[in-house]
């Protein structure tokens, strides 16, 4: 694939290294001349000096045949504009933007960026997965269908323990998909299945019903 990276800072630098190793054709656009020199010295001529938000620069590097543009400068607004120029002027099929402000994730998607990546959100997700006190973890979001796959761990204080599932008031739009008990094989839930402390429950839900689902499964 031909991948254009806008921004030759640390993120762009390591990204380029990894992509080159995987055998992709990579080109970095960087404003700062000394950054360009370092990259070109270390990786061969893969960096040009310029403004990746400018249509003229993108035309020079053949953005029309690029498979992907990744904008990883330190400024959200620059990353947005680079992706928009690539998408609307050069029809680059896939655009990825780094964002500093996690709130911009939804905005960028609405404004045409295919994949906004927020380090803050990624770290938050990792914390949710690592920290056992966090009772509900997002596994997968199907944005277009308004659905999400979540994991809930049943805490020792939960009032749902020992009850058959049919007696647990699950919110509309939520469905339990799998129960993974500690040290035993996973099972498909039935109305008579009983939850125990420490069980992992995989459930399908909607963003609106998420909170009620959490309460139903973990509430005291």
């Amino acid at each position: 694939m031909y991948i254009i990276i806008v921004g030759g800072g640390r993120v762009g630098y390591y990204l380029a290294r990894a992509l080159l190793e995987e055998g992709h054709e990579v080109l970095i656009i960087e404003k700062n001349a000394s950054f360009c020199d370092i990259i070109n010295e270390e990786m061969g001529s893969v960096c040009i000096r310029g403004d990746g938000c400018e249509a003229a620069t993108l035309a020079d590097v053949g953005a029309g045949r690029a498979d992907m543009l990744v904008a990883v400068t330190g400024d959200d607004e620059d990353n947005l504009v680079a992706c928009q120029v690539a998408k609307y002027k050069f029809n680059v099929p896939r655009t990825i933007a780094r964002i500093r402000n996690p709130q911009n994730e939804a905005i960028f998607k609405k404004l045409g960026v295919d994949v906004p990546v927020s380090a803050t959100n990624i770290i938050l997700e990792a914390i949710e997965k690592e920290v056992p006190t966090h009772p509900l973890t997002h596994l997968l979001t199907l944005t277009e269908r308004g659905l999400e796959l979540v994991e809930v761990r049943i805490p020792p204080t939960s009032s749902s323990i020992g009850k058959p599932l049919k007696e647990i008031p699950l919110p509309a739009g939520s469905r339990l998909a799998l129960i993974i008990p500690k040290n035993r094989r996973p099972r498909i839930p039935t109305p008579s299945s009983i939850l125990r402390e420490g069980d992992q429950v995989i459930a399908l839900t909607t963003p609106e019903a998420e909170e009620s689902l959490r309460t139903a499964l973990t509430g005291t």
Partner: protein
Amino acid sequence: MKVVIMGCGRVGAQLAGLLDADGHEVTILDVDAYSFRRLPSDFKGTALLGNGIDEAVLRRAGIEEADVFVALTQGDNRNVMAAQIAKHIFNVPRVICRIYDPLRQELYDTLGIEAFSPTTIFAHLVKEKIEG
């Protein structure tokens, strides 16, 4: 009219003063409180410290009820991002944006932003003066 202006530089401050004097309800944003010194002493509008490309700040500035949003910071990309948030997220009826780089004009037209370039305007103005 309710007007939100982003960027309290010379142009932003002067525009805020003029609109305020005409009786419009003006809120002006800047990331640097020192910039507000440029506002006229009898300015009756609101000066708000914050970054106009932050959705939360725009909400605080009352963007949801604004009739007009004007982006006048030094950064073209910042202006165009704020203008798009105002237009496509908050549906502000009229959005005006300054861009220094006239090469980008065409793109902003595609994105549905009313952008004008002082660079082009001023160059033509000087040319007319010279040629009479």
